[in-house]
């Protein structure tokens, strides 16, 4: 961590592998897409009841965000920018994501049935996960991100989302039998817990300035 923190501490932006590492950690922790921007909440709340399903969905999200971030960067760089139709990126990105998920589903079904049955139901679910579209849109706001940086940013964001849902699943399993006021059962309590975790994650962004 020392070289990493040292690099962050200096005024000059880090380069090379170090820069990618910083992007990864920043996306996963300080800029956690779920806990600081509250994106992808619906599946987060619905699926975080069990550790096993949370992990399954988390892995699927990591995979899809990583790949679609790279793909959508290419679309941005070579299609929408040269044609000056950046305003259509919302629609184009979601189409690319949907098609990609479909394709991946078919490939997995063909190659590995066990993986398909373990992951299969989550893949179609996350086509419309706003966190995934969010990653593709946010990366364009970052200065100087190339293909590699965008892919790593996607990977980091996905890992952050997975971290959040796994944390949440762990907490929900522990508090399942606790006595809470009736009105707070389910989503109510989950949102409060999410808020508390989010506060902790805001602490990360105080630690690292990037």
């Amino acid at each position: 961590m020392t070289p990493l923190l040292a690099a962050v501490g200096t005024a000059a932006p880090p380069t090379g592998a170090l820069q990618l590492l910083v992007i990864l950690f920043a996306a996963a922790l300080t800029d956690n897409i779920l806990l600081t921007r509250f994106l992808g909440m619906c599946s987060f709340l619905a699926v975080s009841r069990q550790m096993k399903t949370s992990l399954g969905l988390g892995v699927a999200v990591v995979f899809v965000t990583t790949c679609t971030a790279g793909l959508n960067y290419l679309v941005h760089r070579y299609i929408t920018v040269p044609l000056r139709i950046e305003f259509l990126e919302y629609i184009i990105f979601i189409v690319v994501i949907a098609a990609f998920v479909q394709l991946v589903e078919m490939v997995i079904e063909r190659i590995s049935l066990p993986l398909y049955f373990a992951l299969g139901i989550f893949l179609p679910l996350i086509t419309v996960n706003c966190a995934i579209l969010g990653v593709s849109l946010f990366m364009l706001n970052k200065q100087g991100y190339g293909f590699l940086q965008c892919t790593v940013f996607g990977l980091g964001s996905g890992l952050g989302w997975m971290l959040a849902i796994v944390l949440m699943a762990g907490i929900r399993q522990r508090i399942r039998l606790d006595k809470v006021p009736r009105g707070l059962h389910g989503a109510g309590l989950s949102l409060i817990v999410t808020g508390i975790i989010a506060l902790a994650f805001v602490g990360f962004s105080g630690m690292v300035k990037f």
Partner: protein
Amino acid sequence: MTFVLAVGTLCLICGVLAGLLTLAGRFLNDYGRCRVLINGGEREFEVDGGDSLLNLLTQEGLFIPSACGGRGSCGLCKVNVLSGGGPLLPTEGPHLAAEEIDAGMRLACQLKVRNDIEIEVPRELFSVQRYRAAVASIEDLTGDIKRLRLELVDPETIVFAPGQYIQLQAPAYGENPEAVYRAYSIASDRRDSRHIDLIIRLVPNGTCTTWVFTILKTADSVEFNGPYGEFCLRQSDRPMVFIAGGSGLAPFMSILAQMAAEQNARTCRFFFGARSRGDLFLLDDMARFERELPDFKFIPALSDPAPEDDWSGETGLITDVVARHFPDCSGMEAYLCGSPGMLGACIKVLSEHGLAEENIYFDKFA
């Protein structure tokens, strides 16, 4: 210019992606020829894998009952999969009880055939077909019960066992965006293989019955599939009691016609429950069966006869009337058709009066 460019690019991207997916689907979704082995070799199909079991069986002419058309919402298309089905899908879970899952039951519409598969289906489904028919007549039997007579068009004849039912298709109409199937017992003589009769009671807000009562006209074309069910007369010498209410009379019309044709000499008492005289129907046919059959009696019972009915027959709840007639039912056989509530009450009363449960056969309205 930007506008044209934008729309054009979007269309192009969507088109390319759709083409890519179609192409991928063709190559990735090709599972070659798969063998479907049914009931340990009674039937065997060679099909192109990659589609749902329900669709593949339908293509081969084996009709599994399905009300939703393969969307996984009705849970009717259950088949027993012995091998080659893969793990249970999350979309199937809600429709299957724990013991059904243990027994290997699956929903045929959700199961994708990827390899050779071995299944078990009730043998009666082998004779199930899809029929096209024309409405020959629609006749009022009571205020809320109609008799629908269908003339078969394609195929032109049907073979069924008295007591079996068909699934009538109500097409999409009005605010009902999709076709639904509803089960009705065949109420006609099996010897007339070119026609079937259905007895249909109006269900308030019912999709199919509303269609029959308000939209369907003579000469309209309808579709149904069948026959299904095992509500048939058992071979024995035991005296029989039939109990029905409302449109539950339907299967007995077919059963009695068959008995009359065979000159069946078994003792048979048919208790029919209704509210008042206006709810009784097909009394002429019942009188005819009483004349033609050696030992048959039709016993209508009114629970709430109106003063103007001038009713001298049985009154009271159908269960009480049956209990009055047969204080000791041991050694008898019972056939019941009606609403779940009526059936439950009848089964309770009959068992209390000594009728063995294995000799009670029923056809429950769902």
